């Protein structure tokens, strides 16, 4: 079960499994977002290249207008996928 929700003005939480079947849901949720944001991935259990694609598209769109996209609370599988894709060097990752 994948969920995406805004938990504060500048923070969007992702939870569950972000696979190819959830691209439409996430894309529609993120389309109106037009400010700097942080994705809180504390409860995200799984992400594939399809999910990464949605985050990258959001990053590119907001970056064009000078906004930032940050990530926080990456663990386990999520951290591995970002590392192996090289995206851990693209996104700013907030570390505790």
């Amino acid at each position, binding site marked *: 079960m994948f969920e995406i929700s805004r938990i504060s003005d500048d923070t969007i939480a992702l939870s569950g499994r972000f*696979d*190819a*079947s959830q691209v439409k849901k996430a894309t529609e949720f993120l389309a109106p977002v037009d400010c700097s944001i942080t994705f809180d991935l504390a409860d995200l259990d799984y992400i594939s*290249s*399809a999910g990464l694609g949605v985050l990258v598209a959001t990053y590119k769109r907001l970056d064009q207008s000078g906004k930032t996209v940050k990530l926080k609370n990456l663990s*386990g*599988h999520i951290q591995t996928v970002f590392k*192996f894709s090289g995206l851990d060097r693209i996104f700013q990752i907030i570390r505790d």
Partner: protein
Amino acid sequence: MPISRSFPKSIEALEQIVDFLDSSVGGGKIDPEIVGMMQLAVEEIFVNMVKYNDSSSNDIRIELDHRADILRIRLTDFDVDRFDPTEAAAVDINMPLSERRAGGLGIHLVKTMMDQIEYEYKDRNSSVTLIKNLNSTGG
């Protein structure tokens, strides 16, 4: 003994595939990191078959063969044109996003996370076998 199941050629089948993998391999004893890699590799290959092998709508068969510490997962797409994901151009993950070409990241992740990938095309059936040592977190 290998076990297999067929799944509809649809992205919506991913949830059933994860349930199949979870219930068939390891009995919860495999490192969660490796479970995530295995699920990702299967998703990437399955989604490739759904997206690019659209010359048939036959089900896709997934076979699991778990012996000792080696897991082999074979995905077969029936009556389709040849499409070998192992021939996909390499992705340079050190390039800035603006210079990266679209696509290819999924296969890059599969190649990075699995120990070996084999491709076979025979009688118009396209098969990809993912091989993973369950003691190796790869990368």
